[in-house]
């Protein structure tokens, strides 16, 4: 469904990703784990065409490299970035409507789906996002990405700074998106336990390189990795 091959990314002359390859099948949740600065956000930005890259990114066989981000979103990539990048002085509802910019025919259905997944967003529809809590912003961010009718959803650090209860809520939603809506989900996480609880397969990203990959079970058994990322 998503296939990344030999992707390198650059900020000016500085190289941030080195020959990264990964894939995700339709209806699968995979995770990219790594420390701060390992390149997880760069990887997602690169899929959206926001960095200079070499290598290939394919979505359902179609090459996305060289396309502008608006075209990539139109082809079915939704992105909930780490810092949310919401529109602070717009209401929750307007933030969601901006997310529907490329999928205007689906507004009713998508809005219904987002409100069903996050009932709080329906209650807070008229509130400006600048006045919301981190958890609510994460919901708006995910909701905005879903308003674009994505088939692939990229979620960067879904649990960062959130209370455990909210993390559980987010996890439930991500599973529902996979199981009920057939979405492919890629999450980037520092919180490896959260990642392993959701993902069927995991990639470890270190200093811009993939250093390990495997099923969640096999990686959990790797002692060196466990020491580095799982805190035991």
């Amino acid at each position, binding site marked *: 469904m998503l296939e990344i091959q030999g992707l390198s990314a650059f900020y000016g002359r500085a190289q941030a990703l080195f020959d990264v390859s990964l894939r995700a099948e339709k209806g699968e949740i995979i995770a990219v784990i790594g420390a701060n600065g390992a390149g997880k956000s760069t990887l997602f930005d690169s899929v*959206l065409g*926001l960095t200079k890259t070499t290598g290939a990114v394919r979505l359902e066989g179609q090459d996305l490299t060289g396309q*502008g*981000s*608006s075209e990539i*979103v*139109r082809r079915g990539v939704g*992105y909930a*970035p780490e810092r*949310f*990048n*919401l*529109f*602070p*002085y*717009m209401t929750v509802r*307007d933030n969601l*409507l*901006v*997310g*529907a*910019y*490329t999928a*205007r025919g689906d507004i009713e259905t998508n809005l219904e789906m987002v409100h069903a997944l996050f009932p709080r967003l329906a209650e807070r529809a008229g509130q400006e996002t600048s006045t919301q809590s981190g958890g609510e912003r994460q919901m708006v961010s995910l909701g*905005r*990405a879903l308003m*674009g009718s994505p088939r692939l959803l990229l979620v960067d650090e879904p649990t960062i700074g959130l209370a455990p209860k909210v993390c559980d809520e987010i996890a439930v939603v991500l599973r529902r998106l996979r199981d009920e809506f057939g979405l492919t989900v890629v999450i980037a996480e520092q919180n490896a336990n959260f990642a392993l609880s959701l993902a069927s397969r995991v990639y470890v990203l270190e200093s811009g390189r993939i250093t390990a990959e495997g099923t969640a079970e096999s990686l959990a058994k790797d002692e060196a990795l466990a020491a580095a990322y799982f805190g035991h």
Partner: protein
Amino acid sequence: MLQILIQGLLLSGLYALIAMGFTLIFSVGRVLNLAYGAYLLIGGYAYFYFSQQLGLPKIAGVMLAGVLGCVLGLLKYQLLVKRVQGVHSAVEIATLILAVVLQSAVVLIFGDSSKILLPIVPGVERVASAAIPYSNLVATIISWAILIGLYFFVRLTHTGRAMQAVSMDAKGAAISGIDANRINMITWGISGTLGAIGGVFFASYTQLYPGMWVAPLIIAVAVVIVGGIGSIIGTLVVAHIVGFMEIIVSSWNPELRGVFTMLLIILVLVLRPRGLFGREEIH
């Protein structure tokens, strides 16, 4: 008293229209468009050329001025702003030079003597002791209609929301599938149109001459600084403060007309650097 009220309202509506085109560009494109005055200049002369020299209907003259302003805005974005984007001082200096070049072009084509524009709608209405030219009344009504339309356009349409989105978070807009380039084009086009139509009205309010763009540019900067960049409501309110202040001051001593506007700018810059309604995003 009634005279001051009416004249204040008429002038303020016009100032609001002029300032709005300026604030849109700053808010969406983050460009302090010092050549904004050029749209007013081109608008005024285009109206003069089409309506008074070619003898087209006056409403056609206003619309053609608006179209020309729009084209000018698009060209400026495509040929200049887009290419030096990111270097704000370069954009600002380049646009200011462009305004001076356009002023010289106007002098070459039309000469540097000032011209009287015939009223868009002839006639005068007397209310108490006040004489209100229909022209000014029409200008204010059209300005208000445009501003109300713009407000709802920005709030309620996909394109308008996208303009807000780009002004608030460029990355957030990009990952929502918004092509910032396209939104910038639309914004520059709207800004040019507002400026040119504002120029027609401003020239018929005062007079048409090659240096006419400077005073309204200063007004626009003042309204935007005092109102808080990007605020549609703030722009409206402050346009009325500045407009009424000018009318009141000039009823007392016309020489001091602009001085109080400048004092207000300085006062606000010192006390509230972000303006009375301050933030930089359109809302």
